[in-house]
């Protein structure tokens, strides 16, 4: 019951924050990675263990590995060293973290989360810390600190809301990333992150769907679209020489409500006659490598570009995926780029040059579609979405990592009559996370997800009560997977959908039969059908 989780202890905790003891209670942590997945990725120390075990079976020289790993990264990433050095503990970030707001645990304040690592940095990598130890704010690296890091670096969704408020621009997400990467070196990782990553190498996507299953699902979607619209759309897969490679998160062709977004993409591509192809090899936009280590992120990202090269496409179009865009926008270019074997993306329909994608040569579908609407290339009947009163959740990564704020709103405003914004300090750059990103969206972690998602859900509840909102639109597959559970708990009655689902509903296709249902199979009102 919501009342239970609303009892958030916000009083000053007793004890000393430097005490690393944590309790792995069911509901607030993720299970360890199964040994088979650790092996599949050639990562160190595969074994059977769980965070609640007393003995984590760390390698005998774990301390040396961690400190050497830290040293290497301090030299390699200037941002990491800077973030270790410059915090003045002003506290601007403290109450900006959804996990702190929802849990009241002071170690979930971004400043303290970072301090968990800074204290070790100080002890081993600064002169004062080496000499004065605790007096200089240093902490001895112990096994209990390893457990504390694991606990809190997997209670951060790397959403970067805190970084918006930091006067120095410290990006705590990058500290969490380094924390997870270091834990990786001694075999402390979670299954919800590593199994999708291992699957992605094995079959091309996080879910482990094989090429014949991929084809089966997309053809099923084409069959359904034919029933809804009377139009048969093409399902090109691995087609060499196509102009554009389209990459989407695998949940779009597996789960609900993601699937309706897939229908929207397919309708759009048919209607504008796009020369594109899906790929069974690059059948995943998401990159769970980002939640584990830079190395793994790089390996998974490379797959998309290898496939673009093999198929000989001109550029890549990406679907409604969240963290794919963080990887693309902030890391791809220096990891695997420049993608100079591709061309600078130009919309074949409008001639618009996507100059922002000049280097990665990958365009977000919302930019692409907003440009089509802006250029008058689509006929939209917004009344087909009249059963929805819509609000928009800025998915963290497209919003904060690539500044995609207007385009999704522009599409929604053109595809729907009734759109209502949530309060301004909970949207756009200040958007609140779903609470389940960065690989935390698993069932065993449910209590922490509901706590972390509370600020987002609270803003949804506000527009539900004020404007009767009944649909939360978003552009991230993790959002679509986890927000329904969150809203069922905090704001029942609000459903979740994709922006391209709304577009698909509204899209008037040449030669279509009179629509009687929306993409979910729900009947359209009589006036709409006969309009």
């Amino acid at each position: 019951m919501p009342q239970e989780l609303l009892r958030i202890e916000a009083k000053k905790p007793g004890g000393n924050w430097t005490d690393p003891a944590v309790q792995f209670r069911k509901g607030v942590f993720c299970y360890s990675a199964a040994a088979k997945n650790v092996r599949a990725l050639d990562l160190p120390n595969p074994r059977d263990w769980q965070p609640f075990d007393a003995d984590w079976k760390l390698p005998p020289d774990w301390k040396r590995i961690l400190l050497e790993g830290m040293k290497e990264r301090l030299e390699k990433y200037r941002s990491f060293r800077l973030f270790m050095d410059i915090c003045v503990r002003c506290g601007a970030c403290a109450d900006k973290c959804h996990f702190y707001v929802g849990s009241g645990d002071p170690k979930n304040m971004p400043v303290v989360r970072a301090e968990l690592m800074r204290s070790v940095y100080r002890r081993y990598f600064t002169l004062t810390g080496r000499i004065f130890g605790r007096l200089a704010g240093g902490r001895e690296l112990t096994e209990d600190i390893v457990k504390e890091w694991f606990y809190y670096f997997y209670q951060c969704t790397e959403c970067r809301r805190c970084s918006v408020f930091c006067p120095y621009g410290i990006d705590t997400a990058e500290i969490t990333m380094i924390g997870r990467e270091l834990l990786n070196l001694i075999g402390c990782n979670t299954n919800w992150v590593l199994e999708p990553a291992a699957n992605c190498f094995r079959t091309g996507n996080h879910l482990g769907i094989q090429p014949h299953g991929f084809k089966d699902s997309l053809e099923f979607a084409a069959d359904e679209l034919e029933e809804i619209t009377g139009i048969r759309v093409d399902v090109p897969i691995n087609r060499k020489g196509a102009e554009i490679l389209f990459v989407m998160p695998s949940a779009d062709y597996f789960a609900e409500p993601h699937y309706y977004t897939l229908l929207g993409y397919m309708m759009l591509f048919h209607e504008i006659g796009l020369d594109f192809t899906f790929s069974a090899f690059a059948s995943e936009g998401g990159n769970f490598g980002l939640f584990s280590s830079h190395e793994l992120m790089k390996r998974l990202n490379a797959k998309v570009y290898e496939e673009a090269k093999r198929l000989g496409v001109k550029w890549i179009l990406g679907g409604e995926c969240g963290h794919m865009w963080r990887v693309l926008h902030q890391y791809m270019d220096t990891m695997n780029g420049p993608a100079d074997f591709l061309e600078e993306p130009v919309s074949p329909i409008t001639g618009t040059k996507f100059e922002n994608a000049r280097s990665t040569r990958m365009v977000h579908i919302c930019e692409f579609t907003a440009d089509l609407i802006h250029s008058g290339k689509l006929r939209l009947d917004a009344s087909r979405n009249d059963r929805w009163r819509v609000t928009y959740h800025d998915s963290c990564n497209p919003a904060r990592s690539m500044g995609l704020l207007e385009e999704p709103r522009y599409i929604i405003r053109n595809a729907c009559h009734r759109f209502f914004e949530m309060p301004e300090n909970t949207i756009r750059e200040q958007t609140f996370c779903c609470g389940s990103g960065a690989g935390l969206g698993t069932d065993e972690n449910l209590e922490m997800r509901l706590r972390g998602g509370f600020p987002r859900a609270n803003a949804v509840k506000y527009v539900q009560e004020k404007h009767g909102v009944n649909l939360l639109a978003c552009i991230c597959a993790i959002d679509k997977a986890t927000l329904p559970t969150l809203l069922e708990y905090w704001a029942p009655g609000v459903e979740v959908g994709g922006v391209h689902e709304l577009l698909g509903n509204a899209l008037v296709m040449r030669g279509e039969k009179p629509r009687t249902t929306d993409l979910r199979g729900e009947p359209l009102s009589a006036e709409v059908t006969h309009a």
Partner: protein
Amino acid sequence: MPVFECEGRMYEVDEDGFLQEPERWSQDVAKDFAQTEAIADLTDGHWKVINYIRNYYLQFGIAPMVRKLCKETGYKLNEIYQLFPSGPAKGACKLAGLPKPTGCV
């Protein structure tokens, strides 16, 4: 690795209670696992869903797309939740002896 025991029968399972040896699956196994999902009796409706998922899995090595499952069995998603309270990807897949789906689901 945890073990699930039912009337003397032992099954290797993951932390969420999903069968780890998919080839061991039979209808009796599904009956044993039903109690872990708080399903008292497996009705014809349950079997329709379980058998569809199982056969799809044997052909494709994965659970069917949720929408396809609904369409092919004739159940709406909320009806599948009525049959399997933890849903198609969790409850129904568990009884059909599939591994738990992972990723953005």
